[in-house]
């Protein structure tokens, strides 16, 4: 999570508030995408772990609801408008993917899940590129990324 101080060097105060307010919801949508993709991997790879009634699907749906509610409440500044559009688009695509997952997670044709899932992830990437402080991979503490505490670069 970027600090307000680090962000304040890059964007105006109102946008800092927006970033701090929506950061967690962005991460939650990323988690929803990850969970859906993970279930698809298990299904496609024929893993021994069943995907039937997987509790993660229920958890993903709840996480998605909470994140979407939070994002709708957020008040984007002009600087944050593009980010907000992308992240809401991501939420919409992921809603489609979740809805399809409840119908076809165990079927051979997983495109109804995968296509909106990819679109959702692409929208999250666009959102991450639109404002500082949002990342799809936790590089800063990953083993092969340089560790730069609380440093945020302009998007």
């Amino acid at each position, binding site marked *: 999570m970027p600090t307000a101080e680090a962000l304040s060097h890059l964007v105006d105060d109102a946008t800092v508030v927006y970033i701090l307010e929506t950061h967690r919801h962005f991460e939650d949508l990323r988690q929803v995408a990850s969970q859906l993709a993970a279930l698809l991997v298990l299904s496609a*790879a024929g893993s021994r772990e069943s995907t039937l009634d997987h509790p993660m699907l229920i*958890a993903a749906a709840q996480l998605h609801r909470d994140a979407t509610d939070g994002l709708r409440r957020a008040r984007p500044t002009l600087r944050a408008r593009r980010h907000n559009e992308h992240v809401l688009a991501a939420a919409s695509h992921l809603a489609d993917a979740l809805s399809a997952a409840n119908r076809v997670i165990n079927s051979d044709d997983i495109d109804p899940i995968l296509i909106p899932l990819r679109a959702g992830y692409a929208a999250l990437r666009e959102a991450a590129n639109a404002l500082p402080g949002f990342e799809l991979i936790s590089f800063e503490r990953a083993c092969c990324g340089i560790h*730069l505490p609380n440093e945020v670069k302009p998007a």
Partner: protein
Amino acid sequence: MSAYSLWVMEFAAVPNYPLSGLVYGAHNQGTRKLPYCYIVIKGQGQVAMVDVGYNHKAYGEVLANTYGVKGWHPPKTVLDEIGIAPEDVSNIFITHSHFDHMGNIEDFPKATFFMQERELTKWVWTMSLERRFRWLMLGIDPADIMRVVDLARQRRLVCVDGDRADVLPGVDLHAAFDTHTWGCMYVRVRNDLAANSQDSFIFCGDLAYTQENLRGFDPNDPEYIPVGLATGSQFNLVMTTEKMVNLVGGDIQRVIPPHEERLKDLYPSRITKNGLRISELALADGEKSQVY
């Protein structure tokens, strides 16, 4: 008589990486160049690789601008230096699921990918945990998971459960569960093709970053010191190091950490026109050197 040519191919690097991230407990001991590399195994009518590097299209700019990664080049450019195209690669062994080891899946359209099933199932398990456990997901790119879905649908994903011998002639996969990640594996090439090989190399992924993980800081009194990051345990890393060293007859120079810059001191190498290093570990019979 070598069955395979073996090259370590640099595709990017971090010029100044803290040593404490590479060797457990080496705090305040400065920095070191951290090359990003993958391995090419060529011979017996096959071209195989160990890991495929990170996806520059997706986050190369972030890594370059924010995390100091320099000099990235695509597999097409990197492999061209040894006369190989990505389309020539038939088998790829993914040591673990971190972004810098498996992000480039899409660049190898004809390859079959091998990884441990435990690495996949533990992803899923980890993703079902509460937010406060998110540290367990570091280094994982959700987009890589979607790429694996495509591999599975195209029947180009082989989930390995534990060790598997002779996945290619003389090439063995060894599981290293609960070490650097949940389902790590390392690759042993028995370059004499013998069951009791006297000419083996181990490609260890991130089970070791550097020679100090394999021999400590005092060559006269060697010890195993694990890498800085273990999702599993440091104990398992140390015991896996012992297994790897034993598989190469105690010769730690044959355990190849892909992030070790000093391979150049152990093996013939050259710098390409793009500033990337190629280290040549072995040449198959009849193969021309790519570094001289």
